[in-house]
Structure formats: structure tokens, C-alpha cells
């Protein structure tokens, strides 16, 4: 050990330049967060993610307990195991947060997302779209002579796959709800 000897004028870059030392595996986790349904609570949760540079892949929120004024926020997020731990700890310490569950590690969970697809086309494309929709158990919720709106529920992967198939068949628009999830069993 000896004292560092920095040459005068040796450094042109700022010493504030710090890089994160963690280049770990990136995992995807689904978190269920039970919060007080008070004004600003969603902004708080989203602000935590944007303020600390965390990822949001999808987010759904709705009141689930009217009498208790509780909402359930389901967040799909990605990060290193360390970042995921941080996200949970940061969520847990927020005052309006009651519970945080990591459905990805707390045992098997059911995850579902609902999506609406508008597909326009005629002739073979139209027939093929309808045939594939049937295979994916998507329902037709609106139709005109040159378009359908399909409603499909499933895992995010299933919806991704359906979107890929619809693209060449005239996919015009799609709306997705984001993931809702529950742990399996009682």
C-alpha cells in the first residue's frame, strides 16, 4: 500500500464517472402489490421505478377491496436479482403499501393478460385470421365486412405469439391490459 501519485493534469475525464459493477443475469419477475387506494398512490409507485431507474414491463391496477380501500397493482419488471430485491424492499417501505408478493419466486402462479386485436383484410387473409383466432381461442367481439376485433386472454407469451401471426394478416391496432396474476392454490 502506498499513496497514489496522480500526475498533474493527467486526467481529462471526470471522476464522477462511475459504472455499475454488477453485470449479472437479468430476470423477469411479477410482483403483486397491495396498496391503499388513495390519490397519488400509483404516481408514487411509478415514480419509484422511474426515479431509481427500474424497469416496468407491464403494470395493471384496480381496486380489489372496496370496503378496505385496497388496490392491487401487478407489476412485471426486469432486473438483476439484486435490483429485484431492491425493488421489493423499496416498495415494502412505502407508507401506503400493505403487502408485496413476488409471484415469480413464491411458488406457481397464474398469469393472464387480455388483449384486443383489430385485423382488417379480405379473402384468404380474413379466413386465415378467423381460423387462427379459433386455434388461440380468441373471440370475435366486433366484425365488419373487412375487419374483426378479436378478444384474447392468456399469458403474455401467448398474446405475443398471436400478434406475430396476425401481423401479416392485416393487424391494424392492438390494446393490451398488462398482466394480472395470482398465486395458485389456497
Amino acid at each position: 500500500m502506498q499513496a497514489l501519485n496522480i500526475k498533474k493534469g493527467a486526467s481529462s475525464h471526470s471522476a464522477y464517472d462511475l459504472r455499475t459493477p454488477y453485470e449479472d443475469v437479468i430476470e423477469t419477475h411479477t410482483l403483486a402489490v397491495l396498496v391503499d387506494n388513495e390519490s397519488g398512490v400509483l404516481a408514487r409507485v411509478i415514480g419509484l421505478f422511474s426515479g431509481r431507474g427500474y424497469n416496468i414491463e407491464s403494470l395493471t391496477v384496480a381496486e380489489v377491496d372496496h370496503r378496505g380501500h385496497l388496490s392491487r397493482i401487478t407489476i412485471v419488471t426486469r432486473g438483476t436479482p439484486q435490483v429485484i430485491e431492491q425493488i421489493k424492499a423499496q416498495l415494502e417501505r412505502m407508507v401506503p403499501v400493505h403487502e408485496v408478493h413476488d409471484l415469480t419466486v413464491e411458488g406457481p402462479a397464474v398469469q393472464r393478460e387480455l388483449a384486443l386485436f383489430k385485423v382488417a383484410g379480405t379473402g384468404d387473409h380474413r379466413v386465415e385470421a378467423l381460423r387462427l383466432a379459433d386455434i388461440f381461442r380468441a373471440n370475435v367481439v366486433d366484425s365488419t365486412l373487412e375487419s374483426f376485433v378479436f378478444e384474447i386472454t392468456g399469458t403474455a407469451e401467448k398474446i405475443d405469439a398471436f400478434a406475430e401471426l396476425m401481423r401479416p394478416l392485416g393487424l391494424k391496432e392492438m390494446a393490451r391490459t398488462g398482466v394480472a396474476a395470482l398465486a395458485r392454490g389456497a
Partner: protein
Amino acid sequence: MTKVMTGARMVVQALKDQGVEVVFGYPGGAVLPIYDEIFQQNDIRHILVRHEQGAVHAAEGYARSTGKPGVVLVTSGPGATNAVTGITDALMDSIPLVVLTGQVPTFLIGNDAFQEADTVGITRPCTKHNWLVKETSKLAETIHQAFHVATQGRPGPVLIDIPKDVQFATGTYVPPAKARTDHYRPRVKGDRAAIERLAELMETAERPIFYTGGGVINSGTEASRLLRELVAATDFPITSTLMGLGAYPGSGKNWLGMLGMHGLYEANLAMHGCDLMIAVGARFDDRITGRVTDFSPHSIKAHIDIDPSSINKVIHADIPIVGDVTEVLRELLEVWKARGAKSNRAALPKWWAKIDGWRKVNCLNYRNSDKVIKPQYALQRLEALTRGRDRYITTEVGQHQMWAAQFLTFDDPNRWMTSGGLGTMGYGLPASIGVQIAHPEALVINVAGEASWLMNMQEMGTAMQFRAPVKQFILNNERLGMVRQWQQLLHGERYSHSWSESLPDFVKLAEAFGCKGILCSDPKDLDDAIMEMLDYDGPVIFDCLVEKHENCFPMIPSGKPHNEMLLGDASTEGAISGAGGALV
């Protein structure tokens, strides 16, 4: 007493019921009803600051020096936005504050009304929690909840935004005992098994160290007492962060001095070389760790903290213990004694011998001068001339702050108020006023840099008005010294805008405020000048002209590991020829 009252009266009643004695504030249209209530009572003292940032820092000083929450009252719009820096400062340093802001009437919210700002939106990321109260009936309970949240768990600032119509309207007052606070109950008791595991490791550790932080101070004076007992019982060395100074006495035998970027050589090397690190209420800030991949590479780390999100955030904790420092230390001490209080008597002396070798480097050594006052010398004299007095120190931010941390001795908690996490220039003067208001008889000194001090110098008016005899000890190097130091060492000596140009004449400034000004530039006159400052019954602005180009050492440049520390010229010689050669 009727329980139905206006919102404005509820505010004052709730503050009284919470035991509040002092409010730091500044009036404006949106808080006039509350000010009207303040006018009509005598239990709560209102300190009128000169800028809302000053109110928040003063409340921080009050809180930090008493252990009680600080209370701030400001108006909507600019009043609230002016408070934001102080609130952020309190969040970073875990200072309990309750900030009350006025807001435009509910029916005008969202209209871009006069002096409207989205205060809860702006302060959401810089408060522990905040509330916009839309109904008078919820106001009292919200205030009680706010005190609960600010003080329980890891303390922090909270804010309540109160629209003016809510202040005028009437509702039923809810006393503290009836307010629901059960939902927010952070864990205070540590995990017994983890505490036992830690005690076990403490028995075998060959190179243990306590690394303590502001959390010990926040936990209350009992935490400091327990810490001292534990250090005495184990004979382990102890270092602390900037925020934790005073929890263990600076004159204590096991004290290694502060660690971190400008920490002591022996403290940083002991952290680097330890085999068991016991972190207590400290959060592994980047000013502490340097390059994290090289941070104390061979140690087992136990981390005691009330905030679960502090654990494993930066550094992996092998033994995480979530709990209040007081509770955990009490239990750890119990377990330690029950197991026979047996440190590793064979290995500890070797560890201490190694530490003594590092101490011999004398890393705070500097070349003194008889022509110009060295800032370190000024602080050594201040220390010598105030020793034994009931002394509170606040600081601004910069080199002077680090020198104050290095050269002043803190033997008790709550005596050292500094902006650590946010590093807010302009903190020290208003904080010193807050401290003095809480401790009218004590000696309160703000160790300042001239640049920082100018940022909130208007608060001298507050000091005068409320007869707070604060001593402003300005180490005037006519430089943004810390910036200049970085530019010298890390930016090729390109001194971009790091001069303090056109400085005021501080003595005349003091006269203008009606207080005493003292100028000192000769080391020979320094003692007399300091005594003159101490003897003066009232606020003093002490302009201490110091060496302009002194650097603050030791220094670990950002992103460097602990063992790549820069030492000053004076000690570098010793480091290499003497004990330094034998180090890891």
C-alpha cells in the same frame, strides 16, 4: 373545549397535542388562517425565517440536536418550492420533519391559480410520505399520522398540503390517541438467530470493526450508550460515517476517526483489511465504499438497519439484521454477555498493533505556517478553545466541512449537524439557528466556507431577531475550495469558475445586520480573535482568512478502493518510508 373547530385551529391544536414547541416558517396568502391562529396563542413559538429553505434547515438543526421532529410552515407555490431543497436534504439524512404547506382552495386546484404549485407532486420523491388534505374532518388525523410516519422506522420528512378552504371550514378535532396509525409499523426488533450468529462471529473474529452511521444517532441517545458499552465489552475498533460522529466519543480509546472519501487512513485501511464488519445504522454510501468491487474484500459483513431497503442495496450483507439500532444493540449485548463476553484475545492485540501502525502515518498531518492561517490550524484552535463547553457544531458543505469532521472532537451524539447525503451548501447557518433555538444556553458554531455561507446569509436577520447568538466561523479561502481541489487533482488544474469573486466585506456585513464582525488573517492573532467571538453575547460573523490553496487529505478519489488513498504532502513522506511500507 369544543371539538368542532376550523381547520386552521386544528393545525395549531394538533401541533400542541404532538408536543411541538417551535415552528419555523414564513407566511403567505395560503396559510393566513393558520398564522391567524398562531397569533392568538402562546404555547407554540414561531420563528420567522428569511427564506423557506432556511426554515427547513433550521428545523433540521432543531430535530438533529434534540431528537424531536422539526416543524415547518410555509405558504403555497413559491413557499413550497423554496422548501424543496431542505426537504430533500432531510430525506437523504433521515431527519424527521413535518412540513405544512398552504395550498390554493380545493375548488381552484388544477386551475393554475395564483401561487398554485403541485406541491404533493413536486415533493412526492423527496418526502417519506405526503398528503393533500381535501376535507377538514381528515386534517387532524392526518397531522397525527404525519408525526407518526416522520418519526417511526427510518425517520424522514413528511409534508401535508392544506388548501385554504380546508383551513377555513370547520370539522371535528381528532386527538392523537384516536388517530389510526396502526398500518405503518416498521419492524424494530432484530432477528434473534441472526443476532446470535453475529455474536458467535464476534468471538472468533481476528480483525473486527464497528462501522457506524447516522442511524445510531437517529435511534436515540440510548443507542449511543449501548454502542459505547458494546465497544468497551468487545474492545473492537470503531469508525463512523460523517453522519454518525459523536455516537462513540471522538476521544474514546477505540475510536479510529471518520472513514470514507476524506476519512482517516487508519479507519479506511481497517475497513479494507477487516475480517468482520459490523455495520450499524450506516448505509454504504458511495462516499464510504469507494469502488464497491474492492470494498473490504475479505470480510464477513453484518448489517444492522431499520430500513430493509438499505440492506443489500450496495454491499451484500452476510448477516442482515432489520431492526432499530437500540433494540438490536441491547439484544446483541445481552447475547454477548450471556455467552461469556469472550473476544478473540489472541488475535485482537495483533489487529490493534496493525492499526497503531496505520495511526503512526498521522494522516491529518499538514504543514503549518506562521504567516497564513491554515484551515486545519484554525479548527485545531477552535477545538482547543471550546473544549469542555456545551458545544454544538453545524457546517456548510465543502473542504471546511471535511476538516471540521476531521479536526473537531465529538464526544456526544446530537452535537454535530451537517448535510451529508445531499451535500447542501447553505445548510449550516440556518441549521445553527435551529440548534440555538432548541438550546438557548449552548455554544453553537457554524463552521462555514465563504461560498456556502453566502447561499443563506439572509438568515442572519433571523438570528438577530430571535437573539440566537450563533457563531459563524467562516474559513474564507476565497475559493469554492472543494471544487478547486477536484479540478486540481482530477481535471488538469483547469480552475473553471471555482473562485469566490466580489466577496462582501464580512465585518461590514455583520455591522449591517447589527451583529459583531471579526476579521482574522494572522495565525498569531487567532486565539484572541476566537476568544473574542466566544465571549461576545450575540451572533458573530468571523471572517477567518485562510490559506487559499490548501487541499483536504486524505482523499479517496471517487471510484477508487480504500487502499488507494491520497495523502497530503506532509504525511506522504511518512507513509512510504515508515509504517506505510509494511501495509497491505
